[in-house]
């Protein structure tokens, strides 16, 4: 178990190094922050002085080593766009994204899996068929369209929900939460649905297929032959065995919800990491982009590790082998 963990950690470290190198190589292509900083009326000399003071005139490998040197000490520098320390910028945006992803994930799993179980148990029912059709829509409509449609319906026509922002937030220590206010929940609703819709339909379809497959297997037949109650067969035996692939996918999808909530956050001006990174890219805010990419890489490494550990909990065969 310990060896397994250490192996995973080593893999993770290699991934992090690779990601950081790749992201630095990309900075060549996002353009120059200097023009955004000094303004359009700056002279050639002023631009050059700025470039030098930021160290952008140095060769890329050297810039990279300097960045790694600082990053190892937990120092990511100052955002070019807001002049705030990068660690503070990211820490102040993290709660918004995590709360949004959490609710979206709960929605996706909490609605998607039961729907999938139902569809797997009653493959021919009318409800299942209509769910299938609806889920096709959910999986094929891009999230910015979903977002805009929701805004059109609930903000413009009905005027029930705010079209942007997080509403009122409450500071719990360093964590700003929108969970404690009415406007916070109202603001959360549409972004969460937008972000969850794709995953929800994905989980539903995945659960359904897995469930149908497991229900056809020998041990289920055997359980039936033993005369176990239908409920026990469906939920204790069948569902449990469908969970392994679902956990894998759920882990990866949760990571991508946090990492790629960019579109949803942009549509709803949700002040999280997604909105931050898109603005950082537009501005050429290199310190923020670098730190963000590292953070996301770390997140994926950690999530995958947790997923591997969850296998142990769910699948007794894995424990038996060791």
């Amino acid at each position: 178990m310990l060896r397994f963990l250490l192996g995973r950690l080593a893999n993770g470290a290699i991934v992090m190094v690779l990601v950081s190198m790749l992201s630095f190589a990309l900075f060549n292509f996002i353009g120059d922050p200097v023009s955004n900083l000094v303004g359009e009326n700056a002279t050639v000399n002023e631009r050059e002085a700025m470039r030098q003071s930021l160290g952008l005139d140095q060769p890329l490998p050297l810039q990279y080593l300097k960045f790694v040197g600082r990053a190892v000490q937990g120092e990511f520098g100052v955002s070019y766009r807001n002049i705030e320390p990068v660690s503070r910028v990211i820490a102040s945006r993290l709660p918004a994204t995590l709360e949004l992803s959490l609710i979206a994930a709960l929605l996706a799993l909490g609605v998607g899996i039961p729907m999938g179980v139902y569809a797997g148990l009653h493959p021919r029912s009318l409800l299942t068929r209509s769910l299938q059709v609806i889920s096709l829509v959910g999986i094929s409509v891009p999230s910015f369209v979903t977002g805009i449609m929701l805004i059109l319906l609930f903000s413009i026509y009905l005027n029930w929900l705010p079209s942007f922002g997080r509403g009122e937030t409450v500071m719990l220590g360093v964590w700003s939460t929108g969970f404690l206010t009415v406007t916070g929940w109202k603001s959360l609703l549409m972004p969460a649905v937008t972000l969850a819709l794709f995953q929800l339909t994905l989980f539903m379809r995945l659960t359904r297929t897995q469930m149908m497959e497991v229900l056809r297997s020998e041990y289920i037949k055997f359980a039936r032959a033993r005369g176990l109650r239908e409920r026990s067969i469906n939920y204790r035996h069948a569902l449990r065995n469908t969970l392994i692939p679902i956990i894998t996918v759920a882990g990866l999808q949760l990571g991508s919800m946090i990492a790629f909530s960019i579109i949803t956050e942009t549509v709803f001006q949700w002040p999280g990491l997604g909105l931050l990174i898109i603005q950082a890219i537009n501005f050429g805010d290199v310190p923020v982009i670098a730190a963000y990419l590292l953070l996301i890489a770390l997140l994926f490494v950690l999530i995958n590790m947790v997923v591997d550990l969850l296998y142990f909990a769910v699948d007794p065969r894995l424990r038996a082998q060791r």
Partner: protein
Amino acid sequence: MKISTSFKRGAIGLALGLAMTAAGANTFTWSSNLDALSMDPHSTNNSFTNAFVSNIYESLVRFNDKLQIEPALATSWKVVSPTVWRFTLRQGVKFHNGESFDADDVVFSWQRVNTPGSLVKGNLSDLKEVRKVDAFTVDVETNSPLPTLTNELVQLLVMDKGWSEQNRATEASDLGRQKENFANRNANGTGPFKLISREVDTRTVLAVNPGWWDKPKHNLTQVMFTPIKSDATRTSSLISGGIDAAINVPLQDVQRLKSVPTLEVVQGPELRTIFMGMDQSRDELLYSDVKGKNPFKDVRVRKAVYQAIDVEALKRSVMRGASWPAGNLLSPSLNGSPVSLNKRLLPYSPEAAKALLAEAGYPSGFTVGMQCPNDRYVYDEALCLAMSSMLAKVGIKTNLMIEPTAKWSVRLNSNDVSFYMVGHAGLPMADVYGLLKDVVATRTGKEGSLNAGKYSNPKFDAYLPQIASEIDPAKRARLIEEAVAIERADVSHIPLHQQPVTWASRKGIAMAQAPDNQLRLWLVNVAPR
């Protein structure tokens, strides 16, 4: 535990419900596509940020919505010698924290502008020194006689010396040294509004400064600024009433907004003129099929391109009628603009263009790369696409190189261009000199920073220092006219148009739109709903 409140709608409804308890409590919620970068008046040089903090900090003088100079922290000034101006400061002015304003604060702010991290020092580079004469008098010395001193001084926003020292903010934030500064997220000015709270990219709240020295023309008590990046979301927030007003409204939404009975759209020409530049220095044009020579060095080719572009058609079909075709690079609203030259040099005529090209030795035209930004100017990309097909009619094939601003600006800075779109607003001084210096002057370390095509005419260059230092307005106007005539005859650039400033608001809000696209909150009036 701190609760940041945002119950504008509810609060206003409630206030009306509770009759007169909150009478006159006008909250104004407005939006733009981007947030101000910093609250520090000296740490960044970004038009929107400068405009935003001008509601909190003030200078000795200020612009009104017609871009005329008004007294602010100075009550009067006189020219003592050609390079020294004496400013009498306003007495009894208090900063938001209650400290009194005097000459020490002005001198301190001038010193702070010149600290290493400051990015506005370039805007004040013609100033040599600011000296205290007595508690309410300062002398401003310039490097050479400077007719536009007051326009330049608008950028010298005054901070409180005591407050800055107390909070260790005596220097502007220095990105090179990776230091944040207290003044980045906190503010203490003398202006009409004081900063209450700031959450970057979310919400910045200002409240009226009850002790402001000026008699307010506005009737606001609280101002909430919420940037919304997505155009569609910003427009729908206007329609649903989530915000009261927005600047930088996308042109494609204007019709939609006008159709909403509760909203109104205000449009006018911006100071910014959009024009096309051409590489006139390389011996072989980049991104072209012409080898061994550079067609743009020939004025006939530049004239051909000029006559091949139909600015009226651009206005009609790309700009949805909202552009002001330009006769030269200088908006008529700029100080000193040669209005008599604001007519097209040559008419639109594809035939004449073809003839000129044939005369110059390109009877069947040529191919050239066209560098355009896609998120910098109003409809920049669409304009380039339209011009591309206009040019094709006279035989000039363009390879469109459309890129985001961050990439396009690298090209401009490094002269990696052949035929490119660029614009200039003449800000922050709102005077013709800045634009002529940045765009038309021969490129050196200090001049011609946006002259990516390296147009160079020594006769024009000789006029620049005279325009910079001629005090007599009539003489200066003549110099400007002569200089612009040279540049125009050379077709140094091809002017297209002044792009629109588009603002929208709930009906009954007077926003005092100005051609510099800056919202002056101290001129905003909100009608009771």
